[in-house]
């Protein structure tokens, strides 16, 4: 298994991480969504408020849940942009990179 993992190229590894992050993110936001269809068809472009109808107070919970899950701190500047799946993934990636 460890050997197999070594063969995964950087690019492929990155793609796999991305897919993994989307799965994890979906689990985090699921309790707060009010539009199931948009949730089932979630892509990177999905908007938390406009598409998933997450209420803005619950977006704070999403931020806190992400902080807990990844052991990162999402500052104001980052939170300001956290309106889409794509933005959330970029912030997670950035904060994880800064932490390591």
């Amino acid at each position, binding site marked *: 298994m460890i050997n197999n993992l070594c063969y995964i190229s950087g690019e492929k590894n990155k793609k796999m991480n991305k897919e993994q992050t989307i799965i994890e993110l979906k689990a985090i936001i699921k309790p707060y969504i009010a539009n199931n269809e948009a949730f089932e068809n979630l892509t990177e472009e999905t908007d938390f408020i406009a598409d998933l109808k997450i209420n803005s107070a619950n977006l704070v919970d999403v931020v806190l849940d992400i902080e807990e899950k990844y052991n990162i701190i999402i500052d*104001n500047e980052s939170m300001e942009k956290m309106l889409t799946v794509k933005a959330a993934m970029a912030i997670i990636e950035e904060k994880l990179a800064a932490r390591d």
Partner: protein
Amino acid sequence: MIGNDVIDLSVARLESNWQRPGFLNKIFSVKEQFYIETAKDQEQMVWKLWSQKEAAYKIFNRETGTRVFNPIQFECSIDTSVFGKVNFKDKIFFTKTLIDNDKIYTIAVTDPKHFSAILELKQDHKIFKKEGLPFIRKEELGFDYPISVTHHGKFWQAAMLDQIL
């Protein structure tokens, strides 16, 4: 310009746990947290401040066409039990909040003179959206009035400014 926001406390109680560690720190400044700590009804103060922020944000969003999620920087002050302000960077919004049992309703305007020009609309108005923002059409005047609509739980409110100021 006008922005409004209504909160149904009975629903907010189910949807959110404002006592969750970290929650208040993410959205409220030190000054706002002092308002909460010293309030007789802390839960009511949390959601009152939140509705002030939301109502002010609606004006900001409409005026600038920008979306941000930066509640802590929309900083509230409380002047009386009804009137307050919200500051965001160089902007200032004036708010009026009415509380009735489970209902917290804030209207924000950009000029305190506009408080006397607020018209509350009933649901029978033909409301339509342009680029995601609500308007009503006055056929006889051939003009679309920007309005602000809010709903939460069992409450629905729509408001506009009387344009003949």
